[in-house]
């Protein structure tokens, strides 16, 4: 059979890297927002927009990852059931 069980470290890695990704996203967009605010003298509008966008991007990523994990786990479950039946 071509399908193999998803390796556990895929999930461990998600746990390890999610924090870093979140921090980088928020920091980058915060800095970007601040730069725009300085340029257009509009503090703190762009900074807030940047942070909001960052939070939205992080949550979108989180939902996508959880959805992918859920799909992988159900595939693994199906595979285990098939193996037991055989």
């Amino acid at each position, binding site marked *: 059979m071509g399908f193999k069980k998803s390796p556990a470290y895929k999930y461990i890695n998600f746990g390890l890297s999610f924090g870093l990704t979140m921090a980088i996203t928020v920091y980058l967009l915060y800095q970007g927002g601040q730069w725009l605010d300085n340029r257009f003298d509009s503090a703190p509008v762009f900074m807030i927009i940047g942070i909001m966008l960052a939070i939205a991007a992080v949550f*979108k990523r989180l939902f996508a990852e959880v959805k992918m994990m859920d799909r992988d786990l159900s595939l693994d479950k199906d595979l285990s059931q098939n193996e037991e039946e055989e």
Partner: protein
Amino acid sequence: MFFATPVFAAEAAEHGAEHGVGPLFSIFGLEVSSVVTTMWGLMIILFLLSYLATRKLEKIPENRLQNAMELVLELLFKQLSPIMGGEKMAKRYFPLLGSFFILILASNYSGLLPGAGKLPGIQAPTSTLSVTAGLAIVVFISTHYFGVKTKGIGYFKHFVQPLPFLLPLNIIEEFVRPLSLSLRLYGNIFGEEMVVASLFALVPLFVPIPMMLLGILFGLIQAFVFTMLAALYIGTAAAEHH
């Protein structure tokens, strides 16, 4: 003397915090630092090793070097194929991913050489952000290149999926990936080097050894994590059914 005096130790630790030595020389106005010379050395060593291992390829290898290389690459291949969604995909992108793994591993371990980061000419390339950022940019470009190559212009559809208004979020996500990749590798290797340097400055004998042993483990883990994430990004972008 095994233990340095506190004043000396503090001074040494302060100096230890300055990472690496300055530029060694320049070629056509471009400064060549220890990182560059170490990378050149690694390139020569890896080239020679690859040449010697693949000079007379045998189906049942008697050449020990070929055996060792096959063992390492097969292990990596077995780990990468489930992530990439099958052996076919893993085989297609393995030359790039395997090169990443071997180069990053060798770079990380070069920091464990005696005098690395202190003596001119030796410094772990992955302990500088410019090198890790360069590697991450290669991953970024390859991801999109392979995506477009496999799916054509339709590849860019994923930027407006699942809903078109998510376009800015998807773009942000794409640009954060290389930053996250490069900072993770750089932070881990640079941090590990700094801890070893500080311990070495405080107590030169025996005390840094456990940290150096941990460095061997961290070097391997970081090389693997970078390769695995690159595999995940490329695999997702080039998957037949997204």
